[in-house]
């Protein structure tokens, strides 16, 4: 027995120029997958793909644009000859009380975190179903968040968007089951990425605690990028061949405890 069965899998990870998406791309590539990295940061996506070495792809895709998403997924299928795994990772945060949140900002977040997942799913479903028909264990893994499982003050828009991703994953799982495409969500707690560094001051001010102490008390420690990538790799591999419509939380116990 050895590593997860990722060898030769053809994967596309959105928002993978930074943070969690980049860690997922590295994990998949280390397991032998070919990885397309897309991001709104085109230069970043191309540079990261080059870092992975030959056989991978870096491509621009703003998940707010159906055209860009469609083109990026088509480029992936062209380059790899198909698609076995889509990881919807691109996402943004807002750390502002609900009543102070700008309507346009709220809608922008929803457009990226929720509608972006819809766009990529729609654009990839055909290729994934084709791979499944040819015998592949085709899968979609959506990066939601523990913020989709419970409320987090200051994260009203974000929580709503991640809860939406969990529910959306369930419906996709059922609708795509017959085509052989599995769909699951992953729900991490705080991971030390640029996103969390941007949120930390507001959360610290709101709780009156050092942000590091909030993390230590609530979830024991930061989860690592590698730990998130492992759960994604597991759900994205045939090891989880019967898992669909589920959301897998990794949060050091944050959401599992009452107090």
């Amino acid at each position, binding site marked *: *027995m*050895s*590593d997860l069965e990722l060898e030769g899998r053809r994967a596309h990870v959105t928002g993978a120029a930074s943070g969690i998406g980049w860690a997922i791309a590295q994990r998949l590539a280390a397991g032998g997958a070919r990885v397309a990295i897309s991001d709104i940061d085109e230069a970043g996506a191309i540079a990261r793909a080059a870092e992975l070495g030959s056989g991978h792809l870096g491509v621009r895709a703003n998940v707010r644009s159906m055209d860009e998403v469609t083109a990026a997924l088509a480029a992936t299928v062209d380059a790899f000859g198909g698609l076995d795994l889509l990881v919807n990772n691109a996402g943004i945060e807002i750390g502002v009380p609900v009543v102070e949140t700008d309507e346009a900002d709220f809608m922008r977040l929803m457009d990226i975190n929720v509608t972006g997942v819809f766009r990529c799913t729609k654009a990839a479903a055909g290729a994934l179903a084709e791979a499944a028909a040819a015998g592949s264990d085709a899968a979609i893994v959506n990066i939601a968040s523990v913020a989709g499982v419970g409320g987090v003050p200051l994260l009203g828009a974000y929580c709503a968007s991640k809860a939406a991703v969990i529910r959306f*994953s*369930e*419906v996709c*799982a*059922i609708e795509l*089951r017959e085509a052989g495409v599995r769909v699951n969500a992953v729900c*991490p*707690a705080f991971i030390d990425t640029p996103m969390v560094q941007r949120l930390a001051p507001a959360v610290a001010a709101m709780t009156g605690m050092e942000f590091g102490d909030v993390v230590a008390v609530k979830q*024991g420690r930061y*989860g*690592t990028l590698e*730990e*998130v990538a*492992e*759960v994604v790799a*597991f759900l994205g591999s045939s*090891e*989880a*061949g*019967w*898992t*669909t*419509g*589920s959301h*897998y*939380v*990794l*949060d*050091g*116990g944050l*959401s*599992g*405890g009452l107090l």
Partner: protein
Amino acid sequence: MAGRLEGKVAVVTGAAQGIGLAIATRYAAEGATVVLSDLDADRAQAAAAAIGPGATAVGCDVTDEGQVASLIAGVVEGHGGLDVAVANAGVAVVAPAVGQSLADWRKVIAVNLDGVFLTLTHAAGAMAASGGGSLVTIASVTAQAGSPLIASYAAAKAGAVNLTKTIAVEMRDHGVRANAICPGFIDTELVKPHKQTFADALGLQAMGIPDFDAFIAMKQGRYGTEEEVAALATFLASDRSGFCTAGEYNLDGGLRASLL
């Protein structure tokens, strides 16, 4: 490539057959030293022998605190510690809740909830003494929804999930993780004898669904396999799931995802 559980010592309850046996088999294949325990010591012995070196067997009724305590103590003594414990032993009584005897109710609660309590608490104590470990409870998706004909089973599973989370939270600072796996229907000896009873109670015939297997295919695509549960149990036992604790992990082919 090295196995994912290389160097770990694991104990699995109810491991003589079905899901428990698949977990023990996979753990051994991943490099763990595995102790198979079961009410049926002879079959556990035969199963361990079939797995080969690295696997041994101990008779243990999980409803008996003395037996669970000596199981865990024996593993620690024999193998120098305990890294992984899987609370898998389970039984079911298949009958409507209304009119069911208290004795039948208690029979299921005794194995599926009391047994999990004894396994997890004794194992957690041993793990904490040696720097930590991973507890895995084989619960069920029935923990999450009303489950006709298996009231005691589902209630015990819901209790077991909650207990697993509480132990996870209490023991986090001791390095002990605890997670529950919630499978949908797997075609084991636990399910096979009851298909017709379910089909009748659910009125499948009237819905134009030929039998319980066809109903399962509609609800969860197909039966899951013991090996698929074992794969998740391997992930949760391994250090790769280091940030997963107090979690509830479904694998059910989409059964829980749909309201219809």
